[in-house]
């Protein structure tokens, strides 16, 4: 038998003989433990594990917890429950006990952390810090998974011992690093010579640091720079002032600024605000006032009192000499007109001059002594008088209208130009200049091109526009003030009177002369008005007299006219004769009436307008139709219309039309035309008859006698005053046939036929003198002359009867 087999047999036997180990079931054990507890053999709290298969005493649990803490220095309570297998409730309880018993432990957010752990961490941090120069606490907190406050408090106690560095606003830095950055800050701050916003500076420094550190470099907070900067400032390593925490003004800059201003101001005794603004002073007025309390702030410039003294003297001089001065020419070029005006007001001499009415301040910078102004004004006044006397009202008005027309035309042209001028700017500019010169009287203002103009020109254009507006108003008032001097006129006159404006080499004498003219114009107009008033009162007398005369003359002739008109009624049935008679009456009687009226009304008109219309005593002139029309047109408004209708009627063939027209016109001009009443008619007829009788009795010319005799006969028979032309005589005579005795009629017809033959002979004899006709004429004449007494007797006898 195999040895090995035997051995195995034996071993098997031995294994089977061995005593089997004894096992208690869990249930038995649990029962046993309960029994023990019941018997108070176990008199302490016995815990059991989560699995329920183990019992554990609190001490053991505490031991295990302590062991776990010792292992890592930091352990989560939740992890402890897993490790010990005991319920969280018990673990927490025991953990609190453990922590309270050991001052080196702390329970933070469900974690137990020992001081030794913090020491380790601090050492780690220190290592890293020495390596990287700076670490963010937030980063550490994130890494360690604890609050940054906890880390900060932990680091605070270890700074300088375990952690060699500096904690600055959530960042840890090594002293070396801090020193380096502070050196950078110092260098950068010292390098700044102009006021700078520090945050911008920190930005560049940050960039610089990042470049130095490469990619690994952590961004340095600008607050760190700021705190370093503040430290340096406190230590006096940096000189300057800090405003609002970020605006850094280095002392060197402030010093340079002051020095610059000082030197300029002391040299020039003035300084422009814009220059200060260039130097970085935002509120130049306050700055200068605090620095130079005796200086005077103007609109754009700050001046030393010595400047005023200088100006003062010049002004005084000008006032005394009775001259004028342009303060701008005395002041430095940087002065604007506003400044000039302000500084002028500061001058004592100007103030006194203005108070004493010795000076006149115009266009901000010009000062005229009152003597100078008065001189010009006097001369202008004289010019005005001359101008007024020379220019008749018709002339002036036509001139004005012409001028206006011209202006209009130019304006239209310029508007067209500006419209197309957008493409051609140069042209547009030129057009704008033109426009400014001849400013449009409508509202159109080419604003775009106006911008291009210089200030001076602008000023000019404004002035011009004012003046133009003035002329426009004047045009509107033309009915009242026929010839108020325009501004252009005054300006021109002043230019002529005072040539030194131009001599002084001013680019733009108009700019000053115009305001001067504006200043004088009201006075001149006043003067003119007064003068006109004077003339007017003077003329009033004349006018009254004139009107009275007119009325008288008109009454007389108009009554006659009416008288004659009545006589025409006789011939109403005979068309041709009537027409002839009408026309004759209009020519002979109506025309003088109309002329008298026109002439006198014209005179009256002139007088009323204050024109020195010297009365011509040459008597009423006679006008031809064209002249009449011209005069009629000068009449104001409706009167002119009426006058024209009168003229028209005069040209016509109807006396009635003329009469009504004349009446209307007379009414319009405030004259009364008497109507013929019976009584008046009789007396008139009577006087007329007397008149005619005497005329007939003294008449020697046989030809002239006939119409008079006929008229007288009509008067005697029909009691009508007939004015008949030669052609109508025969008809007039024939009409008398049945009214006269046959003998008388025969005498009349004989005389009439004889006269006709004589006249025909006379008209035929004009050719050659050595003709037999002259003999026949003379014989006829003799015959007529012979007949004359018979004729005279015919009339005179009846008149006597």
């Amino acid at each position: 038998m195999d040895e090995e087999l035997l051995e195995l047999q034996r071993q098997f036997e031995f294994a089977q003989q061995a005593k089997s180990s004894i096992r208690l079931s869990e249930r038995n054990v649990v029962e046993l433990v309960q029994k023990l507890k019941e018997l108070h053999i176990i008199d302490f709290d016995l815990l059991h594990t989560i699995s329920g298969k183990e019992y554990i005493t609190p001490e053991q649990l505490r031991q295990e917890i302590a062991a776990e803490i010792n292992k890592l220095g930091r352990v989560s309570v939740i992890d402890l429950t897993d490790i010990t297998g005991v319920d969280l409730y018990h673990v927490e309880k025991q953990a609190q006990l453990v922590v309270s018993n050991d001052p080196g432990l702390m329970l933070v957010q469900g974690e137990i952390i020992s001081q030794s752990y913090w020491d380790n961490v601090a050492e780690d941090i220190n290592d890293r810090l020495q390596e990287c120069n700076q670490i963010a606490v937030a980063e550490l907190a994130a890494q360690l998974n604890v609050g940054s406050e906890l880390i900060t408090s932990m680091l605070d106690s270890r700074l300088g011992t375990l952690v060699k560095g500096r904690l600055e606003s959530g960042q840890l830095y090594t002293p070396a690093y801090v020193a380096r950055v502070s050196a950078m800050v110092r260098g950068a701050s010292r390098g700044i010579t102009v006021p700078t916003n520090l945050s911008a500076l920190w930005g560049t420094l940050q960039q610089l640091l990042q470049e130095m550190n490469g990619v690994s470099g952590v961004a340095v907070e600008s607050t760190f720079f700021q705190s370093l900067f503040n430290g340096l400032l406190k230590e006096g390593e940096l000189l300057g002032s800090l405003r609002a925490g970020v605006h850094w003004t280095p002392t060197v800059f402030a010093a340079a600024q002051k020095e610059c201003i000082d030197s300029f101001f002391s040299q020039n005794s003035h300084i422009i605000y814009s220059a200060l603004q260039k130097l970085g002073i935002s509120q130049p007025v306050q700055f200068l006032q605090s620095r130079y309390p005796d200086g005077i702030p103007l609109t754009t410039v700050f001046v030393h009192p010595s400047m005023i003294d200088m100006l003062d003297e010049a002004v005084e001089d000008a006032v005394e000499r009775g001259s004028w001065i342009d303060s701008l020419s005395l002041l430095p070029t940087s002065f604007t007109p506003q400044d000039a005006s302000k500084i002028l007001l500061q001058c004592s001499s100007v103030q006194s001059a203005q108070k004493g009415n010795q000076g006149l301040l115009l266009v901000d910078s010009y000062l005229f002594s009152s003597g100078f102004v008065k001189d010009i004004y006097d001369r202008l006044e004289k010019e005005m008088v001359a101008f007024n006397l020379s220019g008749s009202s018709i002339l002036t008005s036509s001139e004005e209208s012409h001028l206006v027309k011209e202006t209009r035309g130019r304006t239209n042209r310029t508007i067209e130009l500006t419209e197309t001028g957008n493409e051609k700017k140069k042209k547009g500019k030129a057009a704008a200049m033109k426009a400014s010169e001849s400013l449009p009287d409508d509202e159109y203002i080419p604003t775009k091109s106006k911008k291009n103009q210089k200030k001076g020109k602008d000023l000019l254009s404004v002035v011009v526009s004012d003046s133009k507006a003035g002329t426009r108003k004047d045009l509107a008032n033309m009915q009242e003030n026929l010839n108020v001097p325009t501004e252009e006129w005054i300006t021109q006159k002043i230019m002529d009177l005072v040539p030194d404006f131009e001599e002084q080499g001013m680019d733009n004498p108009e700019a000053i002369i115009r305001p001067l003219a504006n200043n004088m114009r009201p006075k001149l107009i006043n003067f003119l008005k007064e003068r006109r008033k004077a003339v007017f009162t003077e003329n009033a007398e004349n006018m009254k007299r004139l009107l009275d005369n007119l009325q008288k003359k008109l009454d007389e002739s108009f009554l006659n006219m009416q008288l004659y008109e009545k006589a025409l009624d006789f011939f109403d049935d005979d068309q041709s004769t009537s027409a002839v008679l009408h026309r004759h009456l209009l020519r002979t009687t109506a025309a003088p009436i109309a002329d008298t009226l026109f002439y006198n009304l014209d005179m009256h008109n002139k007088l009323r307008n204050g024109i020195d219309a010297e009365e011509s005593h040459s008597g009423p002139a006679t006008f031809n139709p064209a002249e009449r029309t011209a005069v009629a047109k000068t009449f104001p408004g409706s009167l002119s219309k009426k006058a024209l209708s009168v003229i028209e009627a005069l040209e016509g063939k109807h006396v009635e039309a003329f009469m009504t027209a004349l009446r209307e016109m007379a009414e319009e001009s405030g004259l009364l035309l008497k109507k013929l009443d019976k009584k008046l008619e009789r007396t008139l007829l009577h006087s007329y008859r007397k008149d005619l009788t005497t005329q007939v009795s003294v008449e020697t010319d046989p030809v002239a006698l006939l119409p008079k005799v006929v008229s007288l006969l009509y008067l005697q028979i029909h009691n009508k005053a007939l004015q008949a032309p030669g052609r109508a005589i025969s008809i007039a005579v024939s009409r008398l046939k049945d009214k006269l005795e046959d003998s008388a009629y025969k005498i009349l017809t004989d005389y009439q036929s004889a006269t006709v033959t004589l006249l025909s002979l006379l008209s035929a004899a004009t050719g050659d003198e050595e003709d037999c006709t002259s003999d026949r004429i003379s014989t006829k004449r003799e015959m007529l002359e012979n007949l004359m007494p018979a004729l005279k007797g015919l009339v005179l006898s009846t008149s006597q009867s």
Partner: protein
Amino acid sequence: MEGWDTSTKSTLTQIPLLSAKAGPRDGASWTQRLKEEYKSLIAYTQMNKSNDNDWFHISAANPEGTRWTGKCWYVHNLLKYEFDLQFDIPVTYPSTAPELELPQLDGKTQKMYRGGKICLTVHFKPLWAKNCPRFGIAHALCLGLAPWLAAEVPILVDSGMIKHKDDSSSSAES
């Protein structure tokens, strides 16, 4: 390996497997096989002892090791019931499993062939065949006899077919 309870299965997997495929007639290779059987049995026994689950005691009845005899027991209601155990190694071993016999229980239960050979579950044969030659005597005991005892003894005791020796002795005495 369905058909057995989990403790049986876990125990089975811990019994060392055999490697030599040899029957009682194969001479030296049978000896080799026999050695492996012993090793496996030793391991199984030790395992049972350490688990306080010792339940049999056997030994080879002849030097060839083809016949084994011994005892097996089962504790029911805190009483230990002990039975004789014997079996032969068949000639076709290890392709055929040994037929375990409990001669004392012959005729007392239906789960038994004539001569006291226990009836094994339907799962036993295929599993054995599948694991030939790795399964040995220890496996046969573990898979076959242990479940059989656990299943049959309580029924036999309750039905009064078998009586504890103390009872029987006391009843005999009384």
